[in-house]
């Protein structure tokens, strides 16, 4: 256990001991903490564009009394006396607010008092050495490299006056980058890549860069113009993930379904059945994020969402379960995936090009958004390494295309197969805080993928 996470956990426990005894009759209090100690180094052209370190921590309190509930979030200091004063003041403010605040539709009671403490991947990450490695290899291999290197500690904890208490910390790095080249027509082409883990291995990184630089050479061949229309496509695992991310946005949320704004309601209701190849899970066995949710509940380690193309479960938060009299799956209150897995299928990696035969190989998709709710249609763009394939061989790179497809078609009768191999894609989200979580997805062979522009 490193001193950063040890100190944080110990301070969090002290805070619980300080605040919980102050509760009055009928009051319940949930406390959470999140913290990070991160380094961000931003690259452009194989050189450093910007560098930032961030140490931030926030503590949240949710005071509940019957159907009334109010929350406060406050910046956290290493000065425990300051924290106690600030949080005591927040607690008083929340009590005042409770006196008149409108009620919630349902309360969120907690079950039994479970506790957990996990400290993962605590090896040292030498940012100085890694910066030298990236800069030196970019120069020696003559790479036009852009991206961001992120490393450091992250922690999350939650505790409840009824006895729940969890703490999770981890130290990791992710280098999210791309390599660029210009073809003979003066068009930019790029290969997308990432390297994530707990221990930096410069030889492994060099090996990756060499493979990606070779891929870039293929991308610099003369591009083929593809007209809008329907094509047979292979979606690489990250492209499948980009589409599947939409299932967290008014998708498998039970509340969204019940209130009429889910984009997947016909599928959830069973009016639509998709391909039997499709199995989808919320799987905390990926160990990419803590299993406990922000309420301190422990969801099942693996929950089947889609089985043989049929929706078996949705993401149900406890408040939704209570509101509609159904069973909770201990999802986050926002009812989104935290650790999605799509099971692999029968296609071997080696047979993908032969099975694709003629069509498009799409490595990455970009800027996907719902295009029509009733038909579960999404639109977005192809991006980075995408190719035209003929006779089972890569023939030429393509220029970016806009697609507009329905999940009911492309993951329904249009889904010809999924690869045996799945790829783990750790979260690279850094809005406000570094994200935790991941998705594990296979590649997908699809017929009649529609391109509109």
């Amino acid at each position, binding site marked *: 256990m490193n001193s950063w996470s040890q100190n944080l956990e110990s301070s969090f426990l002290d805070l619980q001991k300080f605040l919980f005894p102050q509760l009055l009759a009928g009051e319940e209090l949930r406390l959470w903490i999140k913290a990070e100690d991160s380094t961000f180094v931003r690259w452009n052209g194989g050189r450093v564009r910007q560098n930032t370190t961030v140490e931030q921590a926030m503590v949240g309190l949710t005071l509940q009394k019957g159907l009334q509930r109010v929350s406060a979030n406050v910046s956290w200091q290493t000065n425990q006396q300051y924290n106690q004063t600030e949080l005591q003041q927040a607690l008083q403010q929340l009590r005042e607010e409770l006196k008149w605040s409108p009620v919630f539709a349902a309360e969120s009671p907690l079950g039994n008092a479970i506790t957990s403490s996990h400290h993962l991947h605590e090896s040292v990450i030498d940012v100085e050495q890694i910066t030298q490695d990236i800069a030196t290899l970019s120069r020696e291999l003559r790479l036009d490299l852009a991206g961001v290197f992120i490393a450091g500690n992250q922690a999350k904890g939650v505790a409840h006056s009824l006895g729940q208490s969890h703490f999770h910390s981890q130290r990791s790095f992710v280098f999210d980058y791309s390599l660029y080249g210009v073809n003979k027509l003066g068009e930019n082409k790029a290969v997308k890549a990432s390297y994530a883990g707990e221990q930096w291995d410069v030889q492994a990184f060099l090996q990756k860069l060499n493979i990606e630089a070779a891929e870039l050479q293929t991308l610099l061949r003369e591009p083929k113009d593809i007209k809008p229309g329907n094509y047979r496509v292979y979606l690489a695992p990250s492209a499948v993930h980009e589409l599947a991310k939409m299932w967290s946005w008014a998708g498998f949320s039970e509340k969204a379904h019940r209130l009429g704004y889910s984009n997947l309601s016909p599928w959830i209701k069973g009016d639509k059945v998709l391909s039997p190849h499709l199995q989808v899970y919320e799987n905390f066995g990926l160990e990419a994020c803590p299993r406990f949710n922000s309420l301190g509940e422990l969801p099942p380690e693996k929950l089947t969402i889609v089985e043989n193309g049929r929706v078996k479960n949705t993401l149900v938060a406890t408040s939704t379960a209570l509101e509609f009299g159904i069973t909770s799956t201990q999802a986050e209150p926002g009812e989104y995936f935290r650790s999605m897995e799509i099971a692999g299928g029968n296609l071997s990696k080696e047979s993908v090009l032969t099975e694709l035969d003629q069509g498009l190989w799409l490595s990455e998709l970009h800027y996907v958004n719902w295009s*029509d709710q009733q038909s579960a249609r999404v639109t977005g763009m192809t991006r980075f390494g995408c190719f035209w394939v003929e006779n089972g061989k890569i023939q030429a790179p393509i220029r970016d295309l806009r697609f507009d497809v329905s999940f009911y078609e492309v993951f329904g009768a249009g889904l010809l197969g999924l690869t045996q191999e799945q790829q783990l894609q750790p979260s690279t989200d850094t809005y406000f805080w570094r994200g935790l979580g991941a998705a594990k997805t296979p590649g997908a062979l699809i017929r009649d993928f529609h391109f509109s522009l």
Partner: protein
Amino acid sequence: MQTLPSHFSKSELDVTKILQKFASRAPYVGVRWIEEHVQERTFMNEKSERLEVALDRGVQFEVAIDGALGYAGTSNLTDNGLNLAFDRACALTRTIAPHRVLDFDAGLRPASRGEYRTTTQREWAAMTRQGLVKILLECSEAMKVCPEVATRVVSAQLKQVHSHFVNSLGADFRHEHWFWVLSATAIARQGHETQQRTLNGGLALSYQGGIEIIDRLNLIEGCKQIALEAGQLLRSPDCPRENTDLILAPDQMMLQIHESIGHPLELDRILGDERNYAGWSFVKKEDFGRLQYGSNLMNVTFDPTEENEFASYGFDDCGNVAKKETLIEKGLLVRGLGSLESQKRLGVPGVANFRAASWNRAPIDRMANINLEPGTATLASLIASVERGILMRANRSWSIDDYRNKFQFGCEWGERIENGKIIGVVKNPNYRGITVDFWNRLAGLSGPQEVAAFGTPFCGKGEPNQVIRVGHKSPYCLFKAIDVFGGGAH
């Protein structure tokens, strides 16, 4: 009775004192203090959905070491916390210095001094928290006017942000911002179908100001109207699939301006800083002064001085004084959205837009208020000039490629126009196009009487990611011969 806005006492760290302590330890030091007081209330069907207050405080150091610039942010405001952050900024900057893209240049840090405060007519303290909740619940009740509306959501977020920046070159400026984000959503259901209307799309009611903002918006009438419209959409046909004339209301123009003018003109995108994440731009350095971006009716400005618009401020984060600049004049691209740093790197004119989302992110090139200047027509005359077309309101869906060329946008509300008259409502309206071709099809703009400003708190870009506030003001616009479609068609 408790008044708006804060649940927490305001405090201020003495950044001048912090600067004095650290100034001698690096050739250049800047210190920024930011404190945000937030309260957010959301109600669904008149029951609480979210009721949260927050206090976020932090300091950011900006240091120049060995010719390179670096940043460190911390929410740990103890002496130890500040020492650690400063030392880490210096250490990391020393490490990256031999590999830097850009040399530190003191000339790019104007020694600006001054203060900016959101213009308010009625201070937030003039309203109680209970008063605000009452208004929100009345808005929700107003949506009961339509029986098919099963779900009613209303919300208000108030954010008061204080910041103070000083540096070792003499800069010393403060901001005090008062932000509103208001929204209302009516979801109507019939059988398997649902339709949704919001007040001007998502979180578009984003402004700076006091209580007068609520008075001006006439929220209750607006809520009644969107509820009726959500019900009406259920009974309407899908938007037809055809190539036709398109009139966009200001609440959709906001998105059109944002995605197809704002982002492609950001100089850091043109420089490739964003190409691994948000994307590059079809605009090249040589396009400034040459590219006919749109028809000669098109005049676009960067204006962080507009009272009450969401992204107004006094100075950007390097100390450049915020002022109005023309980006596109009579359709010709003349200026980019780039800070002093980006202007130096690219060699094209820019604006005061070096902005960080907060103390925990380094400043980058951002939009502020990007406005399309009005024309001389009226909405009525634009409609009258259309033989066959669609009018669309309120953004619902958005997607554009990483060079900002091929876009597809969807709206909540459509109306069919034939022979100069509105003949009916259409649902699920979408349109698509390619940026420069689209803007060159601009054939009419309404005048200053029919202009509206909107904003969003969620413009995302950057590595690490940052969301920032932007504002967009626009008239009604007519575009000729655009591909529109709706429903399951594509």
